């Protein structure tokens, strides 16, 4: 058993877990954050993607104790109260989900992807960057559309903020 202490969605949390406990199970079972899903459990599907120290990683392929000391953001930490995050809003607007099981991972991957491409995204880049996220319902078409739309909205938002700052 080890002590695991994390910053999750801006709150300091700690607990004790077996060393073999995966980060995804710690989030879901110890912290009750069940928005992060376990899909394949073999590191392929990406339903478990969360941000660890600002990087989108698969929480089913990392031990909770490995993450101890890190800053974690899960799907529950994206919205600002009742206001959806622009990526969440775009998935809703563009019908980027059907059953919704892969959606938390898709959205956490998308926010990381958009942050890494401040110059903007094109369809080919979005599809290549979704290599590690599997959706069995949508055929990806509306997911790609939603991410492209969110990327544009967020670029406008960033420009607006820069103007305000100036």
């Amino acid at each position, binding site marked *: 058993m080890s002590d695991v202490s994390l910053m999750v969605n801006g709150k300091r949390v700690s607990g004790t877990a077996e060393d*073999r406990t995966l980060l995804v199970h710690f989030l879901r079972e110890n912290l009750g954050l069940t928005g992060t899903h376990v899909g394949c459990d073999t590191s392929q599907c990406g339903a478990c993607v969360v941000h660890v120290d600002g990087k989108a990683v698969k929480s089913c*392929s990392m031990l909770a104790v490995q993450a101890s000391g890190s800053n974690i953001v899960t799907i529950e930490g994206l919205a600002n109260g009742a206001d959806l995050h622009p990526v969440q809003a775009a998935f809703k607007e563009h019908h980027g989900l059907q059953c919704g099981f892969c959606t938390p991972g898709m959205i956490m991957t998308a926010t990381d992807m958009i942050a890494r491409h401040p110059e903007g995204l094109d369809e080919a880049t979005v599809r290549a960057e979704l290599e590690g*996220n599997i959706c069995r319902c949508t055929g990806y078409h509306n997911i790609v559309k939603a991410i492209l739309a969110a990327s544009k909205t967020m670029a406008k938002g960033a420009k607006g903020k820069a103007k305000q700052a100036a």
Partner: protein
Amino acid sequence: MYSVNYHRATSVADAAKLIKSGDAKLLSGGMTLIPAMKTRLAAPSDLVDLSRIKELQGVKVSGKTVTVGAATTHYDVASDEKLKKACPALAQMASLIGDPAVRYRGTIGGSIANNDPAADYPAALLALGATIVTNKRQIAAGKFFTGLFETALKDGEIITAVSFTAPAKAAYEKFRNPASRYAIVGVFVAKGKDGVSVAVTGAGDDGVFRSKEIEAALAKNFAASALDGVKVPAKNLMSDIHASADYRANLIAVMAKRAVAAANA
């Protein structure tokens, strides 16, 4: 996953002490080891986590000499501006490993210590004539990769860095399995002061190897057209449900051609 004891090493010296406990294994990004433990293919008693050791991280470029710390992630290799200038082929190769989430965690040291027969880094390091630096010695890439999932590493030996001389020209091309996305054939071509070397991953039944036939043709003329009609023998190549040995042999020549064209572009 079976029960395991986790240790976070603070330095290479600390890790060298910790690795002596029980049946311990070194853990870096864990992108192969953790899934292998989940399926109980691996069951170490202890894990020694190297991923937070600062001295193992980062890319250094000094003149033509490139040194990559063993715990440098694929993402950091792919996005390193100095490396993109000194050896863009290696940065490009790192950007093709796995998927973005895997590239954030997986490391060069972990990849070569595991020596998966379809991993990308072994081909790059063999073609670049790299030196693998451990906490005990330096090992030439040609002597490091000894077979399927086998390396020259001794028990408890820790890779600390990889270094090589930047080649004049290099490129990597891979033909992926459409489902697993691992290389069915990956070819890294490098032209440096010691001539041309061509290393192949994904295809050899004993892991990564250099293709003498392709090297001989390119030594005379480093152009894609020099490989017209060059036959790679199918002997000692893997045959499985994804590709026969003959198909892989053909793919090696095709990927080598594409790599040479990219290196000359």
